[in-house]
């Protein structure tokens, strides 16, 4: 085939056409690309605006913060209204997974006024995250200074995921509060808040120990709090981690009680439940439980079904007694979690029984 024949052949024509079509397409797309390219900055702004619901300008701010149950991934200050936009990953979700969400922390005059919005970004292993509804997410808008607790919010059918979200939101609040608003929450405040859940409105004095081993009054201003237990102690199927003395007056009598934090094992899916148990020592050497509340749990998907905690109030504990699920200390639908609670309470009380502080001259605290 000569060159001339080749140039006239169909093969050549085909090649030329194909190349032309390709070239024109390539040029057209290159031009369009330079015209329509979405820059990374624009993409980021879009993502932010989508969360925020309106267009705002933001600046990234330093993170440098460690929270216990969550990590702060990204943080921005919204220039337009002074709010903070935090991306936080909360732990403690279903199957030890996490939930990452965007939290808009509204700030006015140097104080957090509320949580404007919580948007779920992504999750790890949260099979039931679809159950988290808008009603649940909108409940974050009413912020009263207290950390959010998933159990006291709308039931969603995804208890664990809800908890991870609460952890992320709480960490975001603490981060903004401590890092940018300078409102460092003292250890004392945390303890006072925690115990307020047990005692409600009752005026109480909380005592820990000072460096000499003597009782020390703990107030909201106390920066370092030392309880009667310095290192966690294993007691039966539980780990007792904290113990404080609480004194209050009831009917003109002074009541002395001890509050112990203990983590019981044997829960659902080998998880644990952490409880706070308040009890007083009686003259005959037994203990009388004032109240038990749950403060934390690990992997207990059905913890929301626990409704038998009132049963502990007034119960007597002494050597040889143990609260068990067969004695009725159980909630239907959460047997394993109930077992863990019993373990925690038993552990706390048997520890208390053997270690009632005697370094003061107050009376036994019987009512």
């Amino acid at each position, binding site marked *: 085939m000569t060159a001339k024949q080749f140039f006239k052949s169909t093969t050549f024509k085909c090649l030329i056409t194909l190349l032309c079509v390709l070239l024109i397409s390539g040029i057209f*797309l290159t031009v369009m690309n330079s015209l329509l390219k979405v820059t990374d900055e624009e993409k980021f702004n879009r993502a932010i605006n989508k969360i925020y619901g309106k267009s705002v300008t933001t600046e990234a701010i330093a993170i440098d913060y460690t929270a216990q149950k969550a990590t702060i991934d990204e943080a921005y200050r919204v220039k337009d209204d002074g709010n903070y936009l935090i991306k936080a990953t909360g732990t403690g979700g279903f199957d030890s997974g996490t939930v990452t969400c965007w939290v808009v922390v509204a700030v006015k005059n140097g104080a957090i006024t509320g949580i404007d919005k919580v948007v779920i970004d992504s999750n790890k292993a949260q099979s039931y995250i679809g159950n988290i509804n808008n009603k649940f997410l909108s409940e974050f808008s009413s912020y009263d200074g207290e950390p959010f607790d998933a159990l006291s919010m709308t039931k969603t059918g995804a208890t664990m995921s809800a908890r991870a979200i609460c952890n992320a939101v709480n960490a975001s609040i603490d981060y903004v509060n401590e890092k940018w608003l300078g409102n460092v929450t003292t250890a004392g405040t945390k303890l006072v808040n925690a115990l307020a859940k047990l005692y409600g409105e009752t005026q109480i004095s909380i005592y820990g120990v000072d460096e000499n081993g003597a009782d020390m009054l703990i107030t909201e201003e106390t920066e370092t709090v030392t309880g009667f237990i310095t290192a966690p102690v294993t007691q039966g199927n539980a780990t007792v981690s904290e113990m404080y003395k609480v004194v209050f007056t009831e009917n003109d009598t002074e009541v002395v009680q001890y509050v112990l934090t203990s983590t019981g094992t044997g829960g659902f899916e080998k998880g644990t439940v952490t409880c706070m148990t308040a009890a007083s020592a009686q003259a005959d050497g037994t203990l009388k439980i004032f109240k038990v509340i749950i403060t934390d749990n690990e992997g207990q998907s059905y913890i929301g079904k626990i409704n038998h905690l009132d049963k502990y109030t007034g119960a007597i504990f002494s050597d040889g007694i143990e609260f068990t699920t067969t004695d009725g200390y159980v909630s239907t639908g959460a047997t394993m979690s109930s077992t863990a609670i019993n373990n925690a309470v038993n552990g706390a009380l048997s520890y208390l029984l053997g270690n009632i502080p005697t370094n003061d001259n107050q009376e036994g605290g019987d009512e």
Partner: protein
Amino acid sequence: MATFIAIVLSAVLTNNFITAKTYGICPFLGVSKKTSSAAGMGIAVTLVMVLATLVTYPIYTYVMVPLEIEFLEIIFFIFIIASLVQMLEKIIQKLSPTLYGAMGIYLPLITTNCAVLGVTELVIGDMSAVLGEASMNIGWATLYALFAGLGFTLVMIIMSGMRERINYYKTPKAIAGFPIAMVTASFICMAFYVFSLISL
């Protein structure tokens, strides 16, 4: 190892191309009347998916991204897939006429199969949900393509088995053909939905 298991589970069961992503439905409905042809189509698609990923992934990562011509990806990919299919057809025809007899007729159909373009587009995108901590590379990409193809074949074979049974019965005219096939596919999807509850 964990990444390997995650990829296999995700590609075959939890994020199966047909039952979860609805890619490659045309051959799924068109060539699933007989188990033998469904299996042939499935294997042919798997082969093309693996080869296409093996070619497109390095081209995208090492040529298109450095040259900043990512926007041409669709043209590049579809062209590569079309040429691959053509080449494969010729090679199989030359090497093994028996194999060509079994698979040859499906090959031209594969160019316009979403599953092939779909997998090449997927592996260059964000795969962090599947890979976890590990970062994407050619090995994982090919592995994903292989198992996505096998998952496709699996569902094809299940579907063809069900359709063979359905053929024994008389179906009303209005639902014969595509409608009954869709309803059958719906049941397969429901069964596969259970796998999406697996989490690693």
